[in-house]
């Protein structure tokens, strides 16, 4: 069975910490920084549970600030 590896990069200065990507992720990969903030004072999102990512791009599609890039590799 092919295995899917995914990864996301989040442009931290663009992120406003709206939490929509965290809710949209089916694999509970993303989460908001609990303490750290970006230059504009938002608790930005980061991939907390990176191994679980399948690169489905659900987070990126609902992101209103277009700060998420998604990569996917299918290993057969």
């Amino acid at each position, binding site marked *: 069975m092919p295995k899917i590896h995914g990864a996301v990069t989040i442009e931290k200065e663009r992120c406003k910490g709206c*939490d*929509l990507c965290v809710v*949209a992720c089916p694999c509970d990969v993303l989460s908001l920084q609990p303490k750290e903030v970006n230059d504009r004072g938002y608790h930005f999102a980061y991939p907390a549970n990176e191994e679980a990512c399948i690169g489905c791009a659900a987070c990126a599609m609902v*992101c*209103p600030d*277009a700060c998420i890039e998604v*990569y996917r590799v299918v290993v057969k």
Partner: protein
Amino acid sequence: MTREEIIRPENKVYSRPRLIDDNYMHYCPGCSHGVAHKLVAEVIEEMGLEDKAIGIAPVGCSVFAYNYIDCDWIEAAHGRAPALATAASRLNPDKVVFTYQGDGDLAAIGSAETIHACTRGENIVIIMINNGIYGMTGGQMSPCTILGAKTATSPYGRRADLNGFPLKVSNMVALLDGTCYVTRQAVHTVQAVRKAKNALKKAFKNAIEKKGTSFIEIVGTCSSGWKLTPEKSNKWMEENMFANYPLGDIKDTSAGLEEKTVEVKK
């Protein structure tokens, strides 16, 4: 597999649309405008309309739309975007003209312009973001505010006997003969985003083929105006807004108009 092995240009499946500028958007966290902007940029890019698309920016939260999407824009007076779009599309028949408006702009002060542009059947795309509130000026009641919704000017909820009923603009313009495609979409889930993108594509195609006015209503959220978190806003929208504004196509005669269009071209 390591993160470095996965993050390579050839493995990229989604990134910021090329036509979205580097400027940070001024919208509040979780605003539906961001996703709608992204969809418009993606559709323009995918259809190769960068040099052909002319956007008409409204007055309201999306007044700075021209700072975020990299195509030609004209800034209209409050509510007059469809009138300006009429002029732009008649003077430049080879261009694709679209307006991007909120519900306060389109349904309140711009209702006459909207109705008459639709009834004339101008070959334009009208995109309306309906969040049932005047978000920019501090959350006042708009014509599309649903009954019972609390806003700055209806603190105990909108009442039918005092404030009247919410205006269903899409259902209204669907009655007009000039419109060829009227649909209501949302952008709160992945599924809804994909559907909204297809609807936008169809609308731009109709404008290119000169089939009449396409009207896309996107039911959106206003977390700041509704005083909820973005996640709760989406839930509130699903429970309350969708009961008043059910999603789906309201009118689609674009397929049947093909013969007529050919005749006009001759």
